[in-house]
């Protein structure tokens, strides 16, 4: 499989409840919670598109879009 290339992290701020699961379990520490306790992609250049954040989000609030999608 070709290496996935990140297009963008689509984050639904209305749905995110700031539980921090995606932030903690991101293997590359791409994500952070901002001052409103909502997730933001602080270091998108480090993202390896493993999509674990998308799979683990209890609120369906984050989607990793790749160039291949």
């Amino acid at each position: 499989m070709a290496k996935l290339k990140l297009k963008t992290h689509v984050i639904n701020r209305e749905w995110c409840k700031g539980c921090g699961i995606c932030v903690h379990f991101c293997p590359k520490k791409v994500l952070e919670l901002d001052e409103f306790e909502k997730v933001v992609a602080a270091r998108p250049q480090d993202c390896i598109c493993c999509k674990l954040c998308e799979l683990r989000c209890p609120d369906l609030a984050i989607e990793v879009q790749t160039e291949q999608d």
Partner: protein
Amino acid sequence: MAVRDYIRERFFPHIWCPGCGHGIVLNGLVRAVDHLGLKKNDIVMVSGIGCSSRIAGYLDFHTLHTIHGRALAFAIGVKMSRPDLTLLVPMGDGDALSIGGNHFIHACRRNIDMTAIVMNNRVYGMTGGQFSPLSGHGTMATTAPYSNIDQEFDVVTLATAAGATFVARATAYHVQQLPDILEEAIRHKGFSVVEVMTPCPTYFGRKNKEGSVVKMMDNLKTGTTPIGSKAKQENPSLIERGIFVKKEMPEYCAEYQKIIERAMKGM
């Protein structure tokens, strides 16, 4: 895939607490259904009462939100009248094993083709954190302030003994395994039971000083191991996950159809 194709967006954000594992089950289930290529119109989800049972409201299948512990009874009714439909029955630990305990064991025994998902967060969350039959000895709950003296059921052992033909355990942490197990359970022709261990940070976590939901997810990671692993031999307290039972047995609706045909011959 688009998760949004399978959910009722008008009800989002959902009512579950921040970090509630039930949302992760919803997430995994949508992926399993998408991978199976099932049409939304061919799926019926039947749930009972409790935090977990709210899942039926959020998914855009045919959904029935029924009475406490009796989701399986309603689901059996649907399946008997329309055996061509795919039945999904999400339940909480109390809903499935306490209030609905008898429905659960007899559905296992009958081997009717449906998938029971026991979302086990070890507590009654919706009603304020009472201990459930899966809380376990020594745990704390609002109704066990000096610790719980009840032993817990093991869902896998119980379902196996009752005759379920597919029995598996997954966790909300192992999100790559979760959709695969759910998919295989749905594919299985017979009664499938999937226990999904999910964190309840609001009640179980807080009462038992497990810390944040991140810590609870870490506990699911470190406290479980694949079936038959070497780690289990070295540390018997680890909880095994994976597929425990997968066997072929006569399916209830198919057997019932044979009875109909036999009876019609005599007419």
